Each structure stands twice: as structure tokens, then as C-alpha cells.
């Protein structure tokens, strides 16, 4: 009995030792060059809806430059947003970095985010930041339709997402209706088409035998493999897949400007109002908008949002991407109806 108790204690110690910020403990080089934040010695906590490959390199460079440790909680944007909502003021998080404007807007709307300073907000085009200054876009991403070039002829490509509810697309496309980016796209649709029309479209999609996935990744995978003709996803998944695998029989199709299918979204970040390390938190966001970090995001094919860093090679420049004429800030207001309409249409 005593042996087990001892073992438990020993294991707890090991655990305590390997919890915390040792992400492969590569960042012990504490060359504090520009230490600014209220240096309480406590690590910053970042809730990241972006994946580790995307985030960790820029976090490591932040720690190397400032000496501030950052603990990152990786998860889905929706998961983390609900967690933040449940935590309320008691949240251990200092920074929230979301995949899309709608969920972070929803968090801002609850009063959980603080206003960012102007020098941070002015780094990006106001189109890609919250009008109230509660979050700022870090990268841009576009909604597209990925399609398999062997299974979909050029001439068949739809001019609008509305075409997807037609019989010729029955059973041929995938959607991820519970994923943050799809939800964000629906919030845009509600803004331009209204709730009734949006419900009509969602119900049309639900009735057209779509292949339902939890996320964009598996859809792109299925399209690349030729198991699925097409799917509504974000633009960069395919580009990353090509980067990993070489040439694949799939392309991104952009819907024309003004069609709800072609929303350019900002993946934004904001500082929690309850954070006791406001300055360091803002520094982190500043770092995400540094040239160095933005260049890194480019290697994963997202659009940098600061001046002077070009978009991904071989892709349309950000300014020329077809998009909707809406304010991303307003998507926070259509989040609730969007979620309800998706549920009402039975898309789960």
C-alpha cells in the first residue's frame, strides 16, 4: 500500500515537471532583448484555435526575443470559445487567437476582450479588424470550393454556392457544418442574403445528400484522393497538402465577388479583459503581426495582413480575392442566428 502511495507521489512529481511550457524544451535561450510586459514571471496563456505547426514557431521566437514564456492551449476555435464563455472572468487565458471572425466576435460581444492599442490595430487594414478594436486580424483566409480535376470538369464549376443545392451536385460535395469556418461563412451569408434565404440554402444543402465532416482537412483529403468530387473549405488546406505530397489532382475554385461562397475572413486575436498581463499579451499580438511571423504564416499559405509582405506565391493577391461586401465585425451579430439556422436545417 505504501509502495503504491509512494509511486503515486513520484508520478505526480514527474507530471508536474513535464507539464507547463516545455514544448520540446527548445526555447531555453532566454536572451531578453526587449522585455516590456509586467514581468511577473508567470507564463502568458494563449488559447489557440490555430494548429501547432502554425503557431509554435512564432511563439518560440517570441519567447526567444522577450524571455516571456507562453503556454499554448491548442484546440478547435469553437471549443475554446465555449470554454472561454464558461470560464468568464475567471479565465486563465491572456490571449485568444481564433480561426475566424465570428467566434472571436462572439467573445468580444460578451465583454471578455479588452480594447487593443491603436498602434496594433493600425498595422492591418481596418477591414480585417474589429470595428470596436477588440480583436485584430493576424492572417487572411478565403473560403473556396476545392474540387478534384478528374471528377469535376471546368465547365461544371458553379458560379455560386446556390448551384450546390441543384440536383447535379447531389451527393458530390462535402461540408463541415459544425466547423468554425463554415459557421463564419454562414454568418456572412446571413448578412448578405438574410435569414430566410440562408435557411433555404442550408436546407437545400442538407437535402442534397452532402458528405458531412467535422473539419475541412478530411474533406480536402477525400477530394485529393478522388473519394469526393468537391467540398466547401478554406483555401490553404489544399496548398499545404500539395506542399506535403507534391502535385495532386485537385484545385481551389473561387466563387465570384459578391457570392456568399467567397468570403475572405480574418483569423483574429484579442486580449482577455481579465488578463493580469495586459502588456505582455499585447506584445504577443504585436509579435504575431511582425514581419518575421507573417513570413512564417506565408509558408503555410495564409495571407499576411501587414503591409509589405506579399501573399502566397502563385495565388491571387489579397486585394484581388473575390469577397463579400460586409463588415467582419458584424458577423458577431449573425453568429447566433447562423448557429440556429444550421441546427434547424439538420446539418450536424
Amino acid at each position, binding site marked *: *500500500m505504501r509502495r*503504491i502511495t509512494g509511486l*503515486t507521489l513520484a508520478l505526480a512529481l514527474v507530471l508536474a515537471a513535464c507539464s507547463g511550457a516545455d514544448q*520540446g524544451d527548445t526555447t531555453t535561450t532566454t536572451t531578453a532583448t526587449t522585455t516590456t510586459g509586467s514581468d511577473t514571471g508567470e507564463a502568458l496563456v494563449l488559447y489557440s484555435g490555430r494548429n501547432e505547426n502554425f503557431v509554435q514557431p512564432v511563439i518560440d521566437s517570441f519567447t526567444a526575443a522577450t524571455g516571456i514564456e507562453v503556454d499554448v492551449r491548442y484546440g478547435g476555435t469553437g471549443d475554446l470559445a465555449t470554454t472561454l464563455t464558461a470560464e468568464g472572468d475567471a479565465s486563465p487565458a491572456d490571449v485568444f487567437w481564433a480561426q475566424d471572425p465570428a467566434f472571436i466576435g462572439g467573445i468580444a460581444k460578451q465583454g471578455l476582450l479588452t480594447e487593443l492599442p491603436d498602434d496594433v490595430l493600425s498595422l492591418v487594414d481596418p477591414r480585417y479588424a474589429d470595428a470596436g478594436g477588440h480583436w485584430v486580424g493576424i492572417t487572411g483566409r478565403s473560403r473556396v470550393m476545392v474540387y478534384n480535376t478528374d471528377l469535376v470538369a471546368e465547365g461544371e464549376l458553379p458560379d455560386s454556392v446556390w448551384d450546390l443545392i441543384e440536383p447535379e451536385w447531389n451527393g458530390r460535395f462535402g461540408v463541415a457544418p459544425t466547423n468554425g469556418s463554415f459557421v463564419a461563412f454562414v454568418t456572412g451569408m446571413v448578412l448578405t442574403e438574410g435569414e430566410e434565404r440562408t435557411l433555404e440554402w442550408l436546407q437545400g444543402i442538407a437535402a442534397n445528400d452532402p458528405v458531412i465532416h*467535422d473539419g475541412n482537412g478530411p474533406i480536402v483529403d477525400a477530394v485529393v484522393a478522388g473519394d469526393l468530387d468537391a467540398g466547401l473549405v478554406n483555401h490553404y488546406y489544399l496548398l499545404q497538402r500539395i506542399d506535403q505530397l507534391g502535385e495532386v489532382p485537385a484545385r481551389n475554385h473561387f466563387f465570384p465577388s459578391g457570392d456568399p461562397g467567397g468570403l475572405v475572413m480574418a483569423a483574429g486575436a484579442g486580449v482577455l479583459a481579465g488578463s493580469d498581463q495586459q502588456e505582455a499579451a499585447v506584445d504577443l499580438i504585436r509579435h504575431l503581426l511582425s514581419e518575421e511571423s507573417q513570413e512564417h504564416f506565408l509558408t503555410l499559405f495564409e495571407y499576411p495582413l501587414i503591409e509589405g509582405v506579399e501573399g502566397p506565391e502563385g495565388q491571387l493577391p489579397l486585394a484581388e480575392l473575390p469577397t463579400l461586401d460586409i463588415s467582419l465585425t458584424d458577423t458577431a451579430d449573425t453568429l447566433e442566428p447562423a448557429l440556429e439556422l444550421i441546427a434547424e436545417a439538420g446539418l450536424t
Partner: protein
Amino acid sequence: MTTASPPAVVPQRKPSVPKRRRASAALWVMALAVTIPGAAPIAHLVWTVLRPGGFDAGGIAFDRLAELFGSTTLLVVTVTITAVLLGTTTAWLTTRTDLKGRGVWSMLVTLPLVIPSYVGALAMLGSSGNGGVVSLALDAVGLPKLGVFHGFWAAWGALSLWNFSYVHLIATPALRRMDPALEEAARGLGASPRRTVFDVILPQLRPALLSSSLLVALYVISDFGAVSLLRYETFTRAIYTQFRGRLDIAPALFLSGFLVLAALVLVVAEQRNRGRAGLAARRPTRPPEHVALGRRARVVAYGFLGVLVIAALVLPLVTIGWWAIRGTALGNPADPVWAEALRSGGGAGAAAAARAVAALPVAILTVRYPSRPARMLEAVSWSTYSLPHLAVGLGFLVLSIRYAPATYQTVVLLVIAYVAMFLPQALAATQAGLRQVGPSLEDASRSLGSGGFTTLRRITVPLVWRSLLAGGALVFLTVMKELPATLLLRPTGFETLAVRIWSASSELFYTQASVAALTLVGISAVPLYLLVTKDLHR
């Protein structure tokens, strides 16, 4: 387990009427202390449904509830039946027939337990469809490719393949310990072999089959990864959908509470049916005889075992291995996952050790001092296990934010949650051990003047040590694989292998996912090996 608790002495012994014995207060305190942390989230979840206005606040339409209930029940029933059939057959073939290499086969059909069902599901996806490993192999020999596995049949297949080993694990010792005298008597009285099976063998197996089918059924209810990947809608998946898609935790909590209520019904039903489980307690004096299989039966048996091992063990490992090799060849990053491995192993180890300790008071209470309150305590701990881990995780999340913020997102809370979720696993093993030992030695110890705690330390624990270890190994194995509660409750930065596999694969970083999955399988093999050698082939 503190020595500070007063060594409660049982004053008057009444060995002739053991039923009347009463448990000491200290025992009750300890048993309650390990049960309550797990019971609190259940109570909270049930309350969210049953409280006045709970149903409306949940915001889930009745039709939807009925639909989810139907699809979940379908999967639970079909998988449980399949797993029991498969597991009982493998157990019988490897203990009671004259097949060659029974020990090796028994090990091989137990090994699928190292593969978490979501890894199995990932591998199913990776082997089917146009680009799948099996499809490519079929294509190479001119056969049509496999369609993408998805929906009910895929979920049924995955959960049956990666759960039947539990049945095998539980049915094997039961078959081994059966007294051959009963079967001989039946045959001597003129019963046909078939009748012997149904009238003599199966009734003796009943407790083992019932408890293993409960284990499987609860696992299916709880499964989150496999059904999500294979796109079959169950309650648990719906809970996750609500959680991540609503910016509000209430609907997810409501669905969780509803599921708890349903699971409680199942647990109570099993307890009612188990009844007189004392049959297997006496150890037979000689091993059971082996049935000689005919030539055709032998071929069928080898074929059956072979196909099962290929589907549940070889294919997933080949698929994951193929990802790792292909990814490395293409130069995709695949960092080693030592830190993750250490956290997974540490977390599982701590939970297993804590659990083995915690199971003891509840086991003693239920086996030695059976009473209505003790049974209720047992039911409560089983029901935590029956809850989808996602629901338990949500319950802990909400309660700790509200009432114990200091523990929120700490290793302590995570281990408490693991312990709460896997109590029954350790409990079942410990109870079985206690039942086999019998109370006479403890009575003797007490009659010689030893206090309750001394008896526990010097008699009971040394006697059930192996069972405690077996229970611990089982918990270790399960905690290693645990995904949803870890996702919700882990300390920030505490990425385990399971979390790594899940997040990497959902972002299509298969190379990273496969490295983590292979590591997980490798580590899990160790406790499984201990479990198998200790338990099955003793």
C-alpha cells in the same frame, strides 16, 4: 489511505453469521472520499436535466433526442452482441480446444486493446477509399478498391474490433477456472455436447459475460473519436457538436445529463441481473479438458482467428506504419514525441496507482459488507464510468471553474477525473480478487486481536496484490488512450499522445499523427503484457 484514521476494531466477532457484519466508519469514509469526486459531476449533470425548466433550457428538440437515442442504442446493442460473440469464441478456442499455439493466439487477440478506437478508425480511413492502403493492394492485384468506410457499418466494425478483446480478457479466466466435474456430470447424465454448453457452461459464464458486455456497452456509449471520424451520429458526438458549435455550454451539459440518466438505467439493470455471482469462486482441482476439433472445424477456427487478428491488429499497424514511412520519405516533419509520451505515461501511471489504492475501500465494502448503501456506492462509481468521458469532462470543467478554480486545468484535476472515470475497471478486478480470497483469513486476523487497518495492511492487501496490479494495469491502458476528457481538462501545454494524434490528424499532419500513434501503441503494450501474463496464463 491515511494512518490517521482511527483503526476501527470490530468488537464482537460473529464468524458464523458473516452477513450481519458491519463496515467500520473509517472504511465508509474512505470509500465515500474516493467516490464523491466522481459523483459530483454526475449529480450536476443529472440536475441540469431534472431541475425545473431544465428541459426547456437545454434547447434540444424532443425529436432530436429521440433520434440520437435511437442511433446510439442501435450501435450499443449491435456492437455489444458482436463483441460478446467474438470474445467468447476466441476465449473458448484458446482455452478449451486442442488448437495449436493457444497461448500465442490468446495474446494476439488481446493485443488489439493497445489500439485506441480512434486510431483504429483513422487506420480504417487510411486503408479504404481511393488512396487507402488496402485499396491500393487490391488494385495491384486487379480487384476493385474499397469505398471509404463511414457511417453505421464502419462504426459498428471499428467498435466491435477494438472492444471484443475486453470480453476475451474477462471470459478466458472464467472458462479456465470452470470445474470440469460439472460438465462431466452433465454428460454422464446423458446431456448432448450442445446441451452441456447451454445448460452448464453458459450459466457459469454468465457473470463474466454480463460484466464484459456492460464494459463494452458503456465504452460504445462513451466513444467519441471513432464515431466522429467515421461519421456516425451518436449522443456523444452530438454533445461535442453542441459544445464546440454553440458558444454556450448549456446544451452540451443538458445532453450529457440526459445520457447519464440513460446509462444509469443500464448499470442498474446489470446489477439486478448479476445476482448470484459466486459460482466461479472455487478453484477446480484440475484443468478442464480440451475439446478435440475435427479437421474442418480446425481450419475454420484458424481462419476465424487469423482474419480477426489481421483486421484488428495487422491492418491498423500497417496503415499507421505506412503513413510514418511515406511521410518521412516525403520529408514531412515528424518530431519525436518524448514529452507527450512522458505526459501520457505519467498521467496514466498516476491515475492507475491512485486508482488501485482508491478501489480497495469500495471493493472491500461491497464484497465483505454487502448492503444496500454499499451497492448504491458501487452503482454510483459504475455510472461515472458509463458516462461518456466527454460528459464527465464537461461536468468537471463546469464544477471546477465554479467551485474549485485553484484546481482548474491542473494535473490534479485531470488525475481526479481519470480516477473517477476508471474506478469500475480497477474495482471489478479488485472485487474479483477479494471474492477469491474469502474472508476467513481476515476473520482470523481480527480474532487474534488485530485492528481493521492492520488486517487490511497485513492480510488483505498482500492477498489481493495481484488483483490490484491487474486493475491498475487496465486503468493505465485505458487512461493512455483517453481523449475527450483530456482535451477538456488538461493543463495548458500538457499535450498527451492522444491529444497529439487527434489534433495532428484533423489537420492532415498524418506523419506526426502516425509517429504519436505508434508510440502510444508501443507504450500500451507494456501494461497489456503484464495484464495478460498475470491474469490469463497464470
